[in-house]
């Protein structure tokens, strides 16, 4: 008959490991259909200058809320087409608008900078989308835009689309190191 002692050891050990894993959940796979508050469209501001009264407080690096969520990045990819970002930025290669898959960020490539770019618009042609989409969708697009230059990890970035393949797929893109400080761009 079975050597029950051995089996018991194995079962107990496995169960413990599995419970520990399950408790940690998996951020990558969460499907968060609505955030709280659901339709919020308020913007978070990023300082426009480094000058501050008293002791300067460095900007804290917030992690994009969806930088590790594959579903959100995939939604961002969908919205990038639906909301016609491709009209000016193409699929990242740029045309009327600057390329998004390279290392140059005129207005900064951190998540809150991209968020502001979308919400507020920028000089020289970037429209302001404030009020046109809820914050959740903006953050999804932010995450996708960051994936276009390889900033997100490979298992979160999207694979190829079911369209004609016109560019390097985000999950194969090497990580670009941002090279331009925001305030120094000639334009």
């Amino acid at each position, binding site marked *: 008959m079975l050597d029950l002692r051995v089996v018991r050891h194995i079962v107990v050990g496995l169960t413990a490991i599995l419970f520990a894993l399950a408790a940690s959940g998996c951020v990558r796979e969460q499907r968060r259909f*609505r955030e709280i508050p659901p339709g919020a469209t308020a913007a978070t501001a990023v300082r426009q200058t480094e000058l501050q009264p008293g002791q300067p407080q460095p900007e804290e690096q917030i992690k994009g809320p969806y930088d590790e969520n594959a579903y959100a990045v995939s939604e961002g990819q969908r919205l990038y087409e*639906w909301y016609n970002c491709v009209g000016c930025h193409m699929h990242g290669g740029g045309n009327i608008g600057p390329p998004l898959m390279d290392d140059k960020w005129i207005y900064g490539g951190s998540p809150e900078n991209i968020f502001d770019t979308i919400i507020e618009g920028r000089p020289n042609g970037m429209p302001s989308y404030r009020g046109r989409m809820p914050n959740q969708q903006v953050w999804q697009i932010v995450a996708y835009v960051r994936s276009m230059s390889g900033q997100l990890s490979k298992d979160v970035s999207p694979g190829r689309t079911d369209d004609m393949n016109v560019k390097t797929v985000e999950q194969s893109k090497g990580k670009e190191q941002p090279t331009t400080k925001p305030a120094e761009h000639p334009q």
Partner: protein
Amino acid sequence: MKTATKQLRPGRCLALVCAASVLLCSGCAGVQSALDPAGLQAHRISRLWWLMFWVCLSVFVIVMGALGYALWRSRRRERVATEPEAERSMTRWVTGAVVVSAAILFILLIADFSTGRAITSLESSDAVMIKVTGHQWWWEFTYDDPVPSQQVTTANEIHIPVGRPVRLEMTSHDVIHSFWVPNLHGKTDLLVGHQTVTWLQADRPGTYRGQCAEYCGHQHAHMALLVVAEPPEDFKAWLDHERLPAADPSNDEQRRGRQIFLTRAWVMCHQIRGTDAGARSGPDLTHLASRQTIAAGTLPNNRGNLGGWVVDSQGIKPGNKMPPNELSGEELQALLSYLESLK
């Protein structure tokens, strides 16, 4: 115990048959029922179903009868009956049963072929042509017309004339869906990269509900459509009305509602012909108020449901592509007044 089991057996079979009959008779009619046909094809398929049902039921009763008799006989037997004669006779019976089974299958095969021919015979040059595009999780319909300005795009609800064939050319925008209106015909998949074609014809007026029948993601369960079959004059009137652009707002509240529509999130995805809203990602809303349901057949189209859908679609259809929206109470009422004016 042994006797009890044997007695239970025929009793249990009988109870099963009774329960089955009760269940079966408890409602063939109904919306979205394949056994309540309203079109030529659904009629033929329903006839095929009943033929197969009675044949299969008879076969089942006979085979179970033979089994039951074999069990009953063996109760009183003292030794096994495997003499050569009994075996030979049994061989004849088994061979006969196999031959009869093959013959029955052949008959059913012919019945299937004949039904198949009948339901594909609707082709006609006089058909209404509709292009169907499946989306996650709604239906886009375009009435085709040789004159481009006469083409009409609508969503989730189509009207067809009674007694005239309708040709549907179908494809999918994203994943595989399946167009299925059981009262009228069987289903045909909407594939990506292929165009599939099906024909429909309604024989009597009515509103027939259909539903997507190929698993297509989170809200596959809530991707329904309505087919309204009406007399040809009514259909022509409806189609002519659909061709018109959206009605202009007739009061201040509706004007305010239109302004909210055009300056907020809705303009990003929806089209209302006659206004600046021209996006094609979401359903066309030009004649939203003329439809019986919203959210692809999920909710009846009334002010309350529309309000709930506009503010928090994720609560009703979690995972669908329309985000929730933030509106003050007054803004919401204005928007709803405008949407309700889009007849």
